[in-house]
């Protein structure tokens, strides 16, 4: 049914290895803004507001993080963050899996993201 292969398996493997090598890049400094609108749009909405968790339709544990306003309400009004003591904020323990199920349970956040959230809390945890 098929024509004879024009590319050998070994050559295809080499090509595959070259593409796979496209990993690991970026600088050591983090210039991303430690602001809630940025964190919500780029970290918590794609990672936390997933279909069975904190999306608008699921609202697992009563927490809705599907947009900036709902996420801010969940994080600040429900007491997951404490600007007076950022390092002991509950959300950081959850995201690091310390004493609880790690959040998000299916796709842990990089420590760089957790530090950015910590810096936002330390700056007053404002919605701006």
């Amino acid at each position: 049914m098929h024509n004879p292969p024009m590319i050998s398996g070994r050559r295809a493997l080499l090509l595959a290895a070259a593409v796979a090598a496209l990993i690991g890049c970026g600088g050591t400094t983090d210039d991303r803004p430690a602001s809630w609108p940025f964190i919500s749009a780029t970290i918590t909405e794609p990672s936390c507001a997933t279909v069975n968790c904190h999306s608008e339709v699921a609202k697992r544990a009563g927490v809705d993080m599907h947009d900036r306003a709902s996420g801010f309400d969940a994080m600040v009004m429900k007491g997951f963050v404490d600007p007076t003591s950022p390092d002991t904020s509950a959300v950081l323990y959850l995201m690091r899996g310390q004493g609880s199920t790690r959040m998000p349970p299916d796709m842990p956040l990089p420590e760089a993201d957790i530090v950015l959230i910590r810096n936002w809390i330390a700056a007053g945890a404002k919605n701006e």
Partner: protein
Amino acid sequence: MRRLLLCLLVAGVGTFGFARGAAAYPQFQFSSGTTKCNQCHYSPAGGGLISSWGRSESGDTISMAGDGGFLHGAVTLPTWFAAGADVRLAVTRTDDGGDESPHGAWFPMQADLYMRFAFGDAFSLYLAGGVRGETRPEDDSISGRFSGIGDRFISREHYLMWRPSATGPYARAGRFYAPYGLRFVEHIYFVRRYTGYELYNETYTASGGYVSDEWELHLSAFTPPPSSLPDPLQSVGARESGIAGYFEYRLNGMAALAAQARAGIGKEASRYQGGLVGKLWVERAKLLFLGEADLIQQVVTTPSFNQSQFVSYLGVSYFPVRGVMITPMFERFQENLSVAGTGRNAGDLQINLFLYAHCEVVLFGRYMRVGTQGQPAATLLMAQLHYYL
């Protein structure tokens, strides 16, 4: 007969359970002798209900034995009507590196029903309805809005289509994903999750294109469901409106190279992305190489900030004997290309066993490294039973 009874038992149990995605295996392009997705699917870009040709292939080429026809060939439907269903049960074991890991769960993953009505040779109406999945063990302390099956109904796809012939031009409008990427059924793959194709994020889309034996083109404009629509029509994930294009060129029935682009404009952030998709079938070795790589420019409105992202997939599917597909793969997502600690790398192994027509067992394992060295790794083990009608 015993295997058939087992399959029907799985389907019966699973009917009480719940949803995931219209099934499509891009690995069957070339490896099964077909070159185009729409040879087996009614959709011009693949996915969803399979055609009579696809049913025949599922029994004769893909599965170890059995009849791929509707109800195992017991009933012949009129040519103007087609129907099907997908039911999945899954069990998982997750180790996220946290203090309470590992933890397990079993859950009904999918229960979807599909129907297609043809009006003459050119027009058709496609309807899909099902129940949202529920992937956490019952725990009142973390329960969400869902209280029963009634809350979980969802119609992820429904559209009208004009397609006078299997090859040539087509147009369709309704709810479905704009064609883009490798279009895996597995929604946890990074190339779906981070490109606007999260689970249940189907948009309202107008799409048109052209499908020939050598190439195909799909152009789409899309928008999320209006927030005024009821829950069964709502999406989950980024609410973006925009356009998408996908062009694929095929070579000698053994390779394909595609270029793609998508712009999704959201209220809080927008994404402008483009990439390449490639497939290569090596007949002698029974290997199908698949790859996708996308660069994404994410533009955040407030504060004004742009970041570049990268997401990729590289896998090779091995078909040692009929009915068995083994796919090791590598995935990469980097949330911000300027910040080294924002990457995720995953090595996956998936084994699909098509033991009997309509029945499938899926075994999946993932080992994922997140961020920089020193962060704990995460692992996922999953087994699925899948029955399609």
